[in-house]
């Protein structure tokens, strides 16, 4: 791994504005992440990592760094699994695809993926925002949860796969189903929201009863929710350089809200 700027200078000479360029070619993930951590502790806030080939846990090892929410990491290539796992503050932008478990149990911050993302995106996610330009894999958004004003949000430009939003306890997920790609036909996914007991999934396009879990209800988004959808799709547009006025082309009647029928889906399961 090579560091092209700044590292040869003495401590405290890194300014928050300076972009730290790291070349991850051949680097072990532990070394890469420790390098980022060391530089962040010295005051660096902007990183650009090139030649990322499967290095895991980028954005995770930053506990103890002040103003973590000011950290920006630009990832060129394909980061490994658990990108931003347990992350608490930073913004990661991936110019490429992301692998599995992106944003695992993430607490705060933003992840922007310009390509597609793999399975188990946002598992147990408790805060922050994830934007995926392309498609996502299986088991996405499982057991997301919210608390007071911490409401995790995922916006997916492409399609979802099966077991989406299982056990969801809070948060919101918006699935645009290739709206910006001109609405090509998409594969139906199944077993959506099994065990759901909180939060909302907003899907563009029809969702049939046989696609969803027994604990899930289908309804139309409320006025307030529609405003939120527009707000987050606008953020999606600005993340990916799409024209914001396209948000106005979204048709409210095309969206369905999937949510829990009960906060206590298993309340009657037991004999006391």
């Amino acid at each position: 791994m090579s560091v092209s700027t700044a590292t040869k200078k003495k401590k405290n000479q890194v300014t928050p504005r300076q972009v730290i360029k790291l070349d991850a070619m051949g680097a072990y993930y532990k070394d890469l992440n420790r390098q980022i951590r060391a530089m962040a502790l010295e005051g660096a806030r902007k990183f650009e990592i090139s030649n990322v080939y499967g290095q895991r846990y980028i954005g995770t090892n930053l506990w103890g760094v002040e103003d973590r929410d000011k950290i920006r990491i630009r990832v060129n290539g394909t980061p490994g699994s658990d990108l931003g796992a347990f992350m608490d503050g930073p913004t990661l932008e991936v110019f490429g695809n992301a692998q599995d478990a992106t944003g695992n149990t993430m607490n705060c911050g933003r992840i922007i993926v310009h390509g597609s993302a793999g399975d188990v995106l946002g598992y147990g996610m408790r805060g922050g925002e994830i934007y995926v330009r392309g498609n996502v894999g299986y088991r996405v958004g499982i057991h997301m949860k919210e608390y007071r004003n911490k409401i995790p949000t995922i916006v997916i430009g492409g399609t979802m796969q099966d077991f989406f939003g299982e056990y969801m306890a809070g948060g919101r997920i918006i699935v645009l189903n290739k709206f910006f790609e001109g609405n090509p036909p998409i594969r139906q996914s199944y077993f959506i929201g099994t065990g759901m007991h909180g939060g909302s999934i907003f899907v563009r396009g029809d969702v049939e009863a046989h696609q969803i879990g027994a604990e899930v209800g289908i309804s139309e988004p409320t006025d307030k929710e529609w405003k939120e959808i527009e707000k987050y799709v606008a953020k999606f547009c600005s993340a990916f350089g799409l024209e914001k006025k396209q948000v106005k082309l979204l048709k409210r009647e095309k969206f369905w809200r999937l949510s829990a029928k009960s906060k206590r889906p298993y309340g009657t399961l037991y004999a006391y």
Partner: protein
Amino acid sequence: MLTSLLPEFNVERNEDRCIQCRVCERQCSFDVYGYDSDHDVMVHREENCVACQRCAVLCPTNALTIRNNDYTYKPNANWTREHIQDLKKQAETGGVLLTGMGCDKPHRIYWDHILINASQVTNPSIDPLREPMELRTFLGRKPDRLEMIGGKLQQIDYPSVELSTPIMFGAMSYGAISYNSFSSLARAAYEYGTFFNTGEGGWPKELRKYGKATIVQCASGRFGIDLDYFNDASIVEIKIGQGAKPGIGGHLPGEKVSEHISQTRMIPEGSDAISPAPHHDIYSIEDLQMLIHALKEATDYQMPVSVKISAVHNAAAIASGMVRAGADIIVVDGLRGGTGAAPKILRDNVGIPIELALAAVDARLRNEGIRNWASLVVSGGIRNSGDVFKAIALGADAVYIGTPALMALGCTVCQKCYTGKCAWGITTQDPYLTKRVNPEIGTRNLLNLLRAWSLEIKELLGCGGINSIESVRGNRLQLRGIGLEQWELDTLGIRGAGQ
């Protein structure tokens, strides 16, 4: 109330002693007692009694006796009263039978079939009152070899933690148990120099000062987790399974999610806290490796990562995978491990006794030459210091105790934890009941328990002529079996008594 059941217990009141002070009525949280003012007598609803003995213990005149109900169905070796009552309950409700605490069925308790050696003549025994005895235990990966460079021992690169005694308090979440119980465990562990485990219900901020004595759990529900939660603690534990209910998750019912619990778990008040059965980011050993290292990254490799499974048939092979996946500590929880709530059918039928699982895991890791890569902690059915000693001689580094710790706080093992009505104030969130555990007294009793067991372990060491617990670890020659079949002796790796 179910209509088709016989009362399990009888309440006998000695009317000559009873002074109608109504203490029993106030103390009973299961609504057994009432006062009939017309006749100035106490009345009983025996069908509600769970035999927790709270009333009998607090009755100032010892007027109450709680007995098993002798009235029974026609005796039947196959259809026991328990089977009949359970079946009727289900016919009335259509539900999964819940229960609390560990398995109470008479599966063989191997501790009671293992005997410990002592020194006679050829090797002098040691008096622990006269000579120093070492119980200090270190958990974490140990190096394959020690290296000396220039006469200087090279720094060992693995994080490890120190315990003053090989006994820790097992995972019991705030939510499953009351705040006073939870904080008593934290404080006692801290003061004694050992550890308590938060379970997966989060960790209240004001208890973070006990971080040096804290193991935090990362389970499938991921409740209350953020970077501070990990880094304020000393060990992070991934909970895969629990002895009382291997292979299933947990449902903390919404009515137990009070304001403070909602804050600690970071979920809305009144919402069910559901832990899915598996971690949905772990479907293989490779996935486990991924989460173990995610936690190491999240804590900058400064603390050991533990992985807890329940004792199942192929625990040894799984343990090997866990160690190879990077776990610094592995925890195996046996068939008799406790719980706040579990389906009865699982608790009583799934898993294997910890003694056999422990021996199998230790032997497997030794045979593969990776025993030093991880410490081995066992739990589920430890009842006294003799069990602790035997567990260590079978290969454990340390044990977790749960039920014994709760007993020190007042528990009488009535198995009604799942009702949320614990009359001893332990497994409840009702403020009227929770104040029954005084955290000062609770802490003191827990410290007493640790002290007493540690002294006894020193006595057991001394009688064997050993002055350090390290010399007993995996030293199966200290043990002999009695009343066991050959396959059982082989699995335990010990010889029969007299051999």
